[in-house]
């Protein structure tokens, strides 16, 4: 124990110690010259990006080809470093922020951008930077929704988009006499009940996933007009959120339209069940599920549709409700404030967000482009229309440093409810108590937000 805590304390201290040492080594500020063609000769740009476990070899090849292109353009070398999880990335940002040294360019998940913004360690985008990037107007406007707290304070440059949609099994719907996928959450619940027969369930839900649950809670709440954090007030104990959880749990406990084993499933396991034809709907997925489904038993039987945008208990969007089809999901890139190669970094990000690489990135990895020209070209593809529509109807999660804690608090409501789910019902009192705990955690995070 003493060892444990000693070590924990020492580890925290080490961050500081390393910082002192590194801060001594790094000189401050200053942008490099650069901007023109060979300004980068002899320089190295460090890029930190998520490891793509779905396409590891393709990603390696893409790194090489992109580096070669950038070298031809500027003479600079790009070194890539990948991270396996958000925690890895967070640790990297922490040590880099404290030491003032590290990658020049980071790729961040959109919902992580507020946390990164909170550190104040990334370059705020002024007209000069936007010009260097090729103009703000080159981006799909909705994708800029989670780049900063307000238009004057943006740090995140959209890189790709992964809007959430739902996948459905056309054959199963047809067999049940359902001619089009549900557009309201109530309708989805009804259809799911009808579609449940034998060992085939209406819905594939990942109750044990670390992220899925909060996306449902957010989606149902925002369409009912509750953004979960409104300025300096957390609203997790709002009746709309309670109704959201009640609906989410009810699919299993009341409607029996979900496989009871799903209380232990992650998103990948729910996808596996859907891909085996064991579920009619798989809500909360992105285009990245397509390669898996295209190799599965249902490869010719599935299609994607927008997630319902009408909250539970309603038949149309209530006043104040947002027509949100998805969270604003995907990746942003940010340039570190401590970087000695800022101009070069912006040149690099410009290249990443220009149509050539955007098109290529979509073709290889299935992430939608954020470049308006590239995105417009996809609209004509009927298979992709739903994704471009979902992308355009994406709404950003609240831009606050408190969002990370709020997300965990929302997920925790489901984590602590799993024993009740397994018994077949989550009592009103228990749900209220868990939401009160979540509200307390979120409000305390909001109060600390600066």
């Amino acid at each position, binding site marked *: 124990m003493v060892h444990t805590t000693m070590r924990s304390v020492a580890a925290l201290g080490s961050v500081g110690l390393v910082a002192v040492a590194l801060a001594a080594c790094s000189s401050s500020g200053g942008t490099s010259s650069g901007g023109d063609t060979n300004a980068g000769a002899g320089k190295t740009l460090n890029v930190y990006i998520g490891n793509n476990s779905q396409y590891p070899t393709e990603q390696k090849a893409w790194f090489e080809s992109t580096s070669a292109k950038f070298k031809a353009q500027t003479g600079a070398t790009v070194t890539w470093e990948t991270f396996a999880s958000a925690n890895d990335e967070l640790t990297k940002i922490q040590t880099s922020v404290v030491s003032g040294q590290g990658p020049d360019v980071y790729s961040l998940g959109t919902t992580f951008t507020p946390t990164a913004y909170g550190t*104040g360690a990334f370059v705020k985008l002024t007209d000069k930077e936007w010009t260097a990037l090729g103009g703000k107007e080159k981006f799909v406007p909705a994708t800029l929704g989670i780049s900063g707290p307000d238009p004057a304070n943006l740090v995140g440059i959209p890189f790709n988009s992964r809007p959430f949609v739902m996948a459905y099994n056309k054959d199963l719907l047809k067999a049940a006499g359902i001619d089009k996928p549900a557009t309201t959450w109530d309708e989805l619940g009804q259809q799911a009940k009808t579609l449940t027969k034998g060992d085939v369930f209406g819905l594939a839900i990942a109750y044990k996933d670390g992220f899925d649950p909060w996306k449902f809670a957010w989606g149902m709440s925002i369409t009912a007009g509750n953004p979960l954090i409104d300025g300096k007030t957390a609203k997790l104990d709002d009746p709309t959120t309670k109704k959201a959880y009640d609906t989410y749990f009810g699919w299993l406990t009341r409607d029996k339209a979900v496989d009871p084993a799903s209380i232990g499933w992650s998103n990948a396991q729910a996808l596996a069940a859907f891909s085996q034809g064991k579920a009619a709907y798989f809500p909360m997925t992105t285009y990245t599920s397509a390669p898996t489904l295209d190799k599965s038993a249902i490869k010719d039987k599935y299609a994607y549709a927008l997630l319902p945008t009408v909250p539970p208990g309603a038949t149309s969007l209530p006043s104040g409700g947002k027509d949100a089809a998805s969270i604003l999901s995907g990746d942003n890139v940010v340039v570190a404030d401590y970087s000695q190669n800022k101009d070069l970094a912006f040149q690099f990000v410009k290249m990443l967000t220009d149509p050539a690489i955007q098109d290529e990135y979509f073709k290889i990895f299935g992430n939608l482009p954020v470049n308006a020209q590239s995105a417009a070209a996809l609209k004509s593809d009927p298979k992709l229309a739903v994704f471009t529509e979902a992308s355009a109807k994406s709404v950003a999660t609240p831009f606050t440093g408190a969002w990370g804690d709020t997300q965990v608090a929302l997920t925790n409501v489901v984590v602590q409810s799993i024993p009740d789910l397994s018994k077949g019902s989550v009592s009103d009192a228990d749900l209220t108590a868990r939401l009160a705990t979540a509200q307390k955690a979120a409000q305390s995070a909001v109060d600390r937000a600066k």
Partner: protein
Amino acid sequence: MSSATAPEAGQGVAAPAAAPGPAGPRPASKKVKPLSKRQRPLWMLIPGGVLMTFIIVIPFLIGVWISLTDLDQYTLRRWLSAPFVGLANYVESLSAGLPAAIWISLSFAIISTIVTVPIGVAAAIVTQNKYKGRALIRAIFLIPYVLPSFVVATVWRTMLQPDGIVNILLNKAGIGDQLWLSGSTAYWTLILVEIWAAWPFIYLLALSGLQSVDSEVHEASALDGASWWPKLRYIVLPYLKGPLALAFLLATLNHINNFTLPFVLFGAPAPESVNVMPMIVYVTSFQSLRFGLSAAMAIVSLIIIAIPLFIYLRAVRLDVHEEGGK
């Protein structure tokens, strides 16, 4: 116990080794101490001392300092000028789930140790005497110990899923399935997996203790016609007392230290019943990004655990030199 005087405690430890008669050399070694004290080349400690200062003392002091500041995502960049908040983090840690986490950690660790000790000792005794296949059995016994914690946790997590192999087998046996990874059962799952992974450590230390039993002692007891029970009770177990006391302490510390197992088994946020101390410090640090608060949590835990640990160390005399003799 706490007021144990040196001679009493000395007797306690010396007793198991009474047969070879170790009591004699002690006063003699005491006499030469002043001389050796003067001649000790203390300067040779400098390299180790410097290293300890840099990797333990200074980071620890920085950790203490961090615990007194409001260091979080907003102040991280200018961490040296993070607002000083005095003991506020310590006060907050008491209402932020730390007492429950300490209780869970301690009880989990002690239960795990208490269960693993007899298993480890039994395994050591089983593999003490030579027989055909002993080497293979010894190797098999070490499998849980050599597997990385991450692998152990991943495999168990897969087996204990609601539709996993364990529940399938339980259903076939007519026992009915269990929700292993959620709710209050998660606590017992954590203990179960920890026991599975940790008993070979006790086994190793017990085996080393058994091997230190002089063959003459075995021969003498055989000549005296001692049967297996008196032999075990009065000869073997007294020899094991020292190694087992050490094993008890180290194993308990290892259990409390174990972050990988609960993190991989249950993920974060974890069910409340398995929010052990390393988890709560981790979540506070790296999910909530409240470094000040988590440093305070770590230090409070350190103090709370250090007190009984100190008493225990004094009681089993692990913090002092071995008495004379072998």
